[in-house]
């Protein structure tokens, strides 16, 4: 049988916001460390570091995850999306526009994670109910807004992104 690699450090490749990247990681690096410190994608925030607050939420292979709880070595070969991927050619994503218009941002620390949870929801369910929105962002804490503006913004964004219904 072929020997399985034992790695202390390893060069891994994955996709971030549509771009292939290669990064050297160690066994104790987390995905958020790679994103923020090695790739300088500092839009993703670290709040609690234990998966309670959701500020570090990114989309991994189509699913929102806490990047503070993903060992970097598990990212090999994966497709990662961060808040930096939302804006396209200088134009904000409809979700970002709706967050601005509804004052769904105060301190802004939770916003990148909120946006990624919301984006994952709207891709799967283009016209969610308020209850479904609340569930989708139940892993994201906001200590400023009281959530109402955020839920309204996501509801509005769903109309902006898919006005057919």
């Amino acid at each position, binding site marked *: 049988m072929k020997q399985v690699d034992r790695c202390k450090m390893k060069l891994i490749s994955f996709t971030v916001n549509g771009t292939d990247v290669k990064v050297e990681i160690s066994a104790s690096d987390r995905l958020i460390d790679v994103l923020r410190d090695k790739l300088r994608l500092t839009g993703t925030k670290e709040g609690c570091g234990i998966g309670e607050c959701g500020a570090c939420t990114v989309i991994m292979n189509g699913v929102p*995850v806490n990047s503070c709880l993903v060992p970097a070595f598990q990212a090999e070969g994966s497709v990662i999306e961060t808040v930096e991927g939302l804006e396209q050619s200088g134009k904000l994503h409809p979700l970002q526009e709706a967050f601005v218009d509804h004052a769904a941002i105060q301190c802004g620390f939770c916003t990148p994670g909120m946006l990624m949870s919301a984006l994952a929801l709207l891709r799967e369910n283009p016209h969610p109910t308020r209850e479904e929105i609340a569930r989708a962002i*139940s892993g994201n804490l906001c200590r400023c807004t009281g959530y109402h503006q955020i839920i309204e913004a996501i509801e509005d964004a769903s109309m902006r992104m898919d006005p057919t219904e």
Partner: protein
Amino acid sequence: MTLGFIRPKTVGELLEVLAEYKDGSKIVAGATDLLVQQRNSKQVEGKPLYLVDITGIPELAYINVESGVVRIGAATTHRDIARSTVIQDVAPFLADACLTVGSPQIRARGTIGGNIINASPAADSLPPLAALSAQVRLVSKRGSRDIAICDFFKGPYKTVIEPGELLQEVFFKVPKNPGNCSFLKIGRREAVAISRLSVAVLLDVDESGKITEAAIAPGSCLPMPARIVRAEETLTGKVPDEETVEAAANEVGEEMVRVSGVRWSTPYKKPVICALTRRAIWKALGVDVD
């Protein structure tokens, strides 16, 4: 302390690695417990470890039903179990329990194998698995063994798994009346809440409305998963009425105090686990109660 990581691609490779490193290795799947423990520095003083990642082994993530037996691979996520139409059909209370784990982000990574191995008394998947009389399959280079879920634990956060062994899957028989089950949980809030108390109920009811079999397994009130036989016997053979259900529910509170003793939380937990069990029994019978 982490020495490095190893990512086997097959169960065969994995078992080789486990046989070589034994207790110098630690299996990691969703990492949602491991990275929190590492942050809390619990691992720092311990023996240096190789992390053995099993998320690159597709053959460990599956849900299937064959000859009336449901098998769930250890690396299957809570998200996949909660969303599985198979589990929603054959054991809806297990889907419900997996849906109450953490948050969407945690459910997307955390696995049922990890929930079992971590052996928290508050683990959400364990009460339904105990009620289903589930078994776990442990495999190593030497062979495999099956253990009833309630015998798998030695105490809080302790199991009988040996170095070199892999928890490959958890399996259980399709219940006779999958509709007659329920899982209720109380946390400090609705989302991202560790269970304060929970209970799983699975009943078999005949045409006359008589309960022919009952399984009641509470969570967060015993050191490890267990069925409450006295409560089950109180229901068995009866057509449920308020008095019987109340009596069965009270047995769960009594058992909690017998096993776990009187604690600072008992004045709260005892009446609440009784009320929660009463509601769960009625819910399993399809009756809405407050």
